[in-house]
Structures are given as structure tokens and as C-alpha cells.
């Protein structure tokens, strides 16, 4: 269990070290949640997942190079496990931001004078 405590500390110190970026991300998520308070969360789910998946895929492809390594350096099963874990973590971070944003973008349109949204009216016609 000390390893878990160690991992928590590593993450914490890393976050503190990059406090500026972390704060920017947190503010972006808060803003997205604020915008999405009347959003359509169910409609935002799929595009958010697609975006998160793309981000994870990009991480999977780019991370070795970004750390100065070549693909041939990933020669051990631990390397692939770490790469997958980091990619999933990045994808999760993107999902947390993208879902509320997507929900906001796919929010129900403002109601018309009849009280029915324009989109719904178009469907009815």
C-alpha cells in the first residue's frame, strides 16, 4: 500500500509543479460545466467519447517520441502497460472537459413563441 501512497504523492507533486496548467484545466472544466448546466448531456456523450478516444490514440502514438524514445525502445511489457495507462489517463482528462462542452454545444435550442424549440418545430413540419 505504500506504493499507492507513493503514487498519490508523485501525482500531487507533479500537479503542484505544473500548477499553472492544472489551474487552467480546472477552470476550463468549471467553465464547461457552467455552460453545460442546461446542456444535453446524453447527446454530448458520443462526441465526447470520440474526442477522448482520439486524444488517447494520439497519446499512444506520440508519447514515446515526445519523451525522446523510439518505438524500438518499448521492448518490455511494462513499457506497453505504462504507455496504455498514460494514454487512457490523457483520454480521461479530455473526456472530463469534452463531455460538458459537447453537451453545451448540443443543448436544446431556445423555445419559440409557441413554447416548442425551433428544431422540434422543424421535425413537426
Amino acid at each position, binding site marked *: *500500500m*505504500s*506504493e*499507492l*501512497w*507513493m*503514487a498519490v*504523492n*508523485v*501525482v*500531487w*507533486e*507533479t500537479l503542484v*509543479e505544473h500548477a499553472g496548467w492544472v489551474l487552467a484545466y480546472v477552470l476550463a472544466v468549471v467553465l464547461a460545466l457552467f455552460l453545460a448546466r442546461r446542456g444535453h448531456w446524453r447527446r454530448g456523450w458520443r462526441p465526447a467519447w470520440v474526442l477522448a478516444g482520439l486524444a488517447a490514440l494520439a497519446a499512444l502514438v506520440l508519447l*514515446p517520441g515526445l*519523451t*525522446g*524514445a*523510439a518505438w524500438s*525502445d*518499448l*521492448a*518490455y511489457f*511494462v*513499457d506497453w*502497460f*505504462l*504507455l496504455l495507462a498514460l494514454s487512457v489517463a490523457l483520454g480521461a482528462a479530455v473526456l472530463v472537459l469534452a463531455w460538458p462542452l459537447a453537451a453545451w454545444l448540443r443543448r436544446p435550442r431556445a423555445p419559440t413563441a409557441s413554447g416548442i424549440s425551433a428544431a422540434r418545430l422543424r421535425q413537426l413540419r
Partner: protein
Amino acid sequence: MNARSTTRGPHSAGRREWLVRAALAGAGLRLAGVGLPLAGAGLPLAVRASAATAAPMRTKAHIVVAGSGAGGLAVASRLAKAFDGARITVIDGKTEHNYQPGYMLVATGLWPMAKVRRDNAAFMPAGVEWVREAVAGFDPHAQRVETAGGRTIDYDFLVVATGLHLDYAQIEGMDVAAIGRNGLGSVYAGPQAAAATWAAIDAFRSTGGDAVLTLPSTPLKCAGAPLKTTFLLDDLLRRAGTRGRTQLQFHSALPTDTVFGVPVVNDAVLARWKALDVQTHYLSRLVAVDPGARRATFASPEGERTEVPWDFLHVVPPMRAVDAVRDSELAWQDGPFAAGGWLEVDPATLQHRRFPNVFGVGDINGTPRGKTAATVKKSAPIVAAHVVDAVAGREPQLRFDGYTSCPLLLREGSAMLVEFDYEGRLTPSMPFVDPLQESWAAWVMERYMLEPMYLAMLRGRI
């Protein structure tokens, strides 16, 4: 017990003190078999959680920590949490804290120098008195530390964490200020020297030529650094396309076929060097340099001297105890550690063998192995726990196995994460991972994760 005053005797050693000691022990106990490097093994979460909420031990003892490097700060941080009412004094004149494991990354152009430089005050635990003077001497009979400014500071308990002395003076003609010029490099002397070494390597890799790397026979801090330098230099030359024009020679002052103290790691390194065409010389000790002429002089044990030209020279200085320890009664009086003046501690308890109110942590310890940040990570909780034991009038309860870790960088993007103990036995934190396997994960750990671990260690959290 030499302690002048122990304010609470064994009668106070109850559950609360046990919890404090358990908290301090942290990674020191080997109750679990898996973990991250620098972790060693640790306490179950339940014990740790209990310890985190344990009340500090009440005492009015004066505990002096001599030195504020990795060991000094890690112990001081834990002691500050462990005691209520104790007077804790840290003595050190330096105001800058350097992340020394990062020097290698600076010297090979992977990190900027600023990344290894921090303000020491940021890590000084709250409630601790910081005497901003260098330690000049110890009088363990009088229980007194002398500072460079002429002050004398009495103690009840002492933790010696002075670090070691880089003895460049043993190399005739060597001038630390000359590092970076005339192809002269040395990663050990500090952040500026590491950055200057990168300047020398950067210039050298564009041309290639004669590269000479050295290894003394004394105990070394981060004994893997001379090997890493060799591996990374080879990699940089290959990437620059100049390896074919370069003779890479490694001069080891150690016996034949020895460049590292752990046989299985030593063999793995030599096998890789053979494949990389690194030429090795043994029983060859650097004794003089002439930077202007770019010539290094090596001596054999018989005194035979050989001059070697260089286009790039990496100097690893002989190392010994700092004068304050070496010239005091705290140093080993005989045996293999007496020549270097290292602190005479019991390797298992890190308690001084003749002055039981004195403990040692970090590079200064005269122990068979272990002059790395990983050693501090594992031993600082044990030392702090033993100070608590001493204050409570108990014998030291824990045992240190000499754990050391060395992420052996092989090239940019790959490393081996070797962990071993006093006996040179490999002690991988993750038993299912082969420590001799080249790994990108080990590289990522060295470059991105060890520094956060180190910072948490300084703050006494791990």
C-alpha cells in the same frame, strides 16, 4: 546513552509513541513485496493511516540535524512531525537546494539547469530553527557542533547529514572552474558544472574524437553516473553521426572487469559496452589533467603513469567525508571506511557505533553501499524512527538493508532500473519486472517521476 537529557523515559513509550515510530518507519519496513523504485516496501495502509493521525511525542530534547541536503531535510521533516516541544535545529550554510539526481539530465542536454535548482527555504519544515552557517566541526563528547561562523551549538541528539566532499584536489591540475572548456566535463560539481559539461559534450559530438571517461576507486555518490555518462555520450555521438570517428575509452581505477560494485549489473554493463565498442582500462586512476594541452595522466597501482590525449574528458572526482566529520571523533577509526573519514555508523541501524545519540543519513555514512537519493528515501524514515527511539530511551527497533536504486540510463529513451542492497543482491520493488531489462518505463520514471518522489521525500511524506 550519551544523551545529556532525555525528557521522557521509557514509561512514556506507549501506543502513541509506537504509532509515531510506525509513521516514521514508513518505507523502511519490508512488509510488502511490490512497489515503485525509491519506494522499497512499506507499511500497510491501515498502519500508515493510523500513524498519520498519531499525536506527536512530547519532549524538550534538542535535536540537531547537521546538513540540509536530501537526507537532512527528509529527516528534519519527519522529526518536526514526530515531536511536540522538541527543539530541532538544522545547520547548513547553503541557501540553494539542488536536485542532484538531475545533474546527469542537465549534462546531456535533456533538462535546463534551472530545473535542478531550488530555494532551500521552501523545504525547511515549519518550526525548525535553521542556522545558516556551514558545519565546521563536531565534539561528540561535549555534544556540540561548531559552525564556520564560530558558534557552538549543543545538542541532545545529532543527525549527521553533511553529505560528502568531492576531492577534485587529488587530481593535479584539475580546476572545477575550467569545466566546460577544452573538452573538460564533470557532472558532479554542481548545476553549473553539469550545464558546462553539456556545453563540452555538445561541442564534442559535432566533431567526435578521443573521449576519455574516468572512475575513481573511492566510494561514490551515484556510482552509476560515470556509466550513464558513457552510455549517453555514445548515444549522442551516434545520433550526431560522429560515433564512427570517436574512440570511447573508459578508465576504471577498480580491478579488472569492474566498473560497478554489483556483479550482475557490472556484467550487464560490460556486455553492452562491448557491443557499443567502448574500450575499457582497469586499475587506471586519473591523477592529473592538463586542460590546455588536453592530456590526462593515469596511474597504475604500481605508480606507472600514462598520458592520454582527449577531445572530451569526463572527470569523476575521488570522494571522501567532509572535513568536519573526517577530522572529528565521529569518523571511522579503522577499517575500510577510515581512510575516507566516513561516519562510523552501524549499517543496520545507522546509529553511531560509539556515540549512541548520534545518527547518520545520506552520503556521509560509512556503509558498504548507498549514496543515492533512493538510499535516503529508504533510510531517512528509519533514522527518524531511531531518533524517536533514542529520545524515548529505547534501542533502535528497525533494520536498514542498504537499499539503493540506480536508474541506469542506456540511451535517450531507455534505461535499466537496478535496485540492490548492502550485499549487492538485486531487490526489485516490482518482483515481476526484470531489473536488467532495458525499458522505456524506467526512462520515463527517471526523467519525469523521480523528481516528484524526491520532493515528497524532502517534505517527509514518503
